């Protein structure tokens, strides 16, 4: 057993941290947050493409670096720590993974080199309203290769070049690849809890759509794509949770009340210890998810669910208790605490809420226990 990243992967992680400290300080995130017309940082996106990260896991024949998923995991952790305002997850964890998993050779050739180069941006369009994803709630349809319907919200829908759209064709759910540059696509930017990330309402009116994978496989494909994305998102969440703990610790050490640093009060010490415990549970579950993802193990659905649940809990807890540790100053716009509070909500909801993942996890465990 070797339950750790390799020296090369740790080196890449350090490089990623240094790069993001130079290119994505929170002042950069704030430029997006404070500018009502901005929903992402295109310059950072170009720089990230220049680092080769977008194509890290894409095979060399399609313009990528041909590395494994473990490399993506260490990059994801650093992006989460930096609260990076870019569509990395939608493009790399979701679109690229879906196309590599279920795309035809032609679809791979059409999309993957563009992703690696930073020209293609992805989005996953499944939701049509409040509540968890359910087959019965999907009204978007495909007829004669043309897709029509409304998706809301679509993370990165306002800036994406391509979307994966869940829609019914002949009564069966399929996952469709849609080029968003064509006529018939209307985008409306949405106000969201995390304005450092893009989200839009997409309206499709008879837009050309190509099915990814087989007919009737839509929901199963989405689940498989989300299992893969969940592991990578868990690393982003863990990176953010670690940063929230660091911020709380730094502030607690420098803030004095009643004649001493507030870090010397057990009420604060134990709160920070609880944050640490949750972060370590998240990291350990994420590691197992990383192993399952990288080896395509049959344990992936269980490992991914556990990673997502643990990481969602850790980032939520860390981001809210970081504000609490800061006290009044933590409630101001000027201090960065709310960046993590906002991002923790975005990351917990973007690929399905923890409630849904808990239910799925138990369903997997039921089947496993019954089989044992």
């Amino acid at each position: 057993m070797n339950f750790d990243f390799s020296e090369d992967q740790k080196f890449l992680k350090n490089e990623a941290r240094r790069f993001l400290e130079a290119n994505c300080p929170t002042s950069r995130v704030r430029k997006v947050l404070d500018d009502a017309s901005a929903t992402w940082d295109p310059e950072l996106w170009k720089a990230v493409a220049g680092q080769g990260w977008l194509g890290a896991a894409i095979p060399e024949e399609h313009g990528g670096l041909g590395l494994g998923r473990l490399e993506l995991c260490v990059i994801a952790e650093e992006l989460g720590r930096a609260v990076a305002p870019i569509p990395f997850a939608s493009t790399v964890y979701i679109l690229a993974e879906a196309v590599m998993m279920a795309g035809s050779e032609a679809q791979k050739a059409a999309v993957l080199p563009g992703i690696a180069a930073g020209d293609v941006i992805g989005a996953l369009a499944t939701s049509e309203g409040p509540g968890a994803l359910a087959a019965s709630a999907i009204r978007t349809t495909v007829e004669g290769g043309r897709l029509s319907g409304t998706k809301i919200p679509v993370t990165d829908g306002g800036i994406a070049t391509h979307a994966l759209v869940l829609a019914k064709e002949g009564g069966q759910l399929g996952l469709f690849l849609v080029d968003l540059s064509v006529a018939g696509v209307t985008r409306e930017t949405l106000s969201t809890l995390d304005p450092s990330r893009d989200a839009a309402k997409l309206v499709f009116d008879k837009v050309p759509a190509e099915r990814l994978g087989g007919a009737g496989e839509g929901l199963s494909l989405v689940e498989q794509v989300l299992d893969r994305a969940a592991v990578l998102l868990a690393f982003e969440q863990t990176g953010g949770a670690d940063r929230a703990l660091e911020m709380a610790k730094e502030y607690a050490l420098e803030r004095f009340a009643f004649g001493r640093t507030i870090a010397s009060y057990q009420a604060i010490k134990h709160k920070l210890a609880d944050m640490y415990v949750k972060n370590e549970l998240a990291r350990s579950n994420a590691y197992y998810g990383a192993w399952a993802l990288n080896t395509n193990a049959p344990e992936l659905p269980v490992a991914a669910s556990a990673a997502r649940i643990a990481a969602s809990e850790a980032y939520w807890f860390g981001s809210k208790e970081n504000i609490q540790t800061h006290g009044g100053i933590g409630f101001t716009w000027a201090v960065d605490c709310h960046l993590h509070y906002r991002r923790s909500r975005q990351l917990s909801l973007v690929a399905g809420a923890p409630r849904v993942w808990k239910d799925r996890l138990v369903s997997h465990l039921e089947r496993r226990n019954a089989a044992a």
Partner: protein
Amino acid sequence: MDFNDTPEEAAYRQKVRTWLEANAPRTRDANDDGEGGGDLAAAKAWQAKKAAAGFACITWPKEWGGQGGTPIDSVIFGEEEARYPIPSNPFQIGLGMCVPTVMNFADQATKDRFGPPAIRGEEIWCQLFSEPSSGSDVAAARTRAEKAPDGSGDWIINGQKVWTTGAQFSDFGIVIVRTDPNLPKHKGLTMFWVDMKDPGVEVRPIHQMSGGSGFNEVFFTDVRVKDSQRLGGVGDGWKVSLVTLMNERLAVGGATGAGWSQFLEAARDTTGSDGAPLLQESAVREKLADWYVQAEGLRHARNRTMTALSKGQTPGPESSIGKIVSATLMQDLANEAVEMLDQYGIINDPDLAPLSGGFHGSLMMAPGLRIAGGTDEILRNIIAERVLGLPGDIRLDKDVAFKDVPTGR
């Protein structure tokens, strides 16, 4: 990152399996209470068998009589051994903490005398640290050792220890005592090994709230020990105890008791007011998922620790989270399992309750688990101070002679 055995690990696992297949017991003693209080002879026989075959004290250095193996070897053996109904292990504290302390601090003759019989399970050791007025605050020990007035250099021990696991069947123990109450408390302590069969040592079992008696009070009345029984320097007892407790951290153990898998089955077998299995209720499913995630988080934190150890690195601080999580997990899970039974939940009769009363047993043991070996609160302090680097608590016992430290009743 690779979750599978390396070729060396696989070979070792195969060797272990072959040996266990030929040698492991096939039935467990019916009186085994899981706290080392079952058939001691069976436990000793099993330990002797393992020692003869080179499967005892796997990670100990060869000069101590161990196998010089890796922590992974030890884990592999533990995993494979757990597949058999082996006797519960009364040697854990001795071999995990006490004897390594002796091996670190005693002279060669003492090591030669005590190492081999301990490994073979012939002699059992206990750890005498806690006292009625020093639980979390171990360094506040009041049991005292004074130089014998006859000038022999011997020491005379008087006082009381408490919560001593396995004292009732132990042959020897390591005891932390106060040798100078005029020094600040951490500086006036000294460690000795003692013979538990000395007539001045009286062991009285503690009747726990769970009904069992795995722990004891130990009274010392004019117990004379030789100066050669001292482990480390006079006044160095605190430093020596830290070595003991560090070994405790490395004695990595898995979770015990009823877990998420048993809970899942119980929830499937119990129906709610609508007649459907409780496992279909979202409130139950959410809790089950949370507990699974916590249990898995701990399992993989241990895997990370093992990986660090196997590379010869010092394990990261992630190994410190185990008991904080597992004790509360055990308590919450057991309580939910009992509550699922509604009125019937009060019944703990093994013939009537699910899992032969396993959830009820966990429910009644859990409060102890949250206290023993570092309370939830002390463990949070340890994480805050040693892992996160936050300041220690403001204390009133620093730089004060121990005899002048404020005390309650």
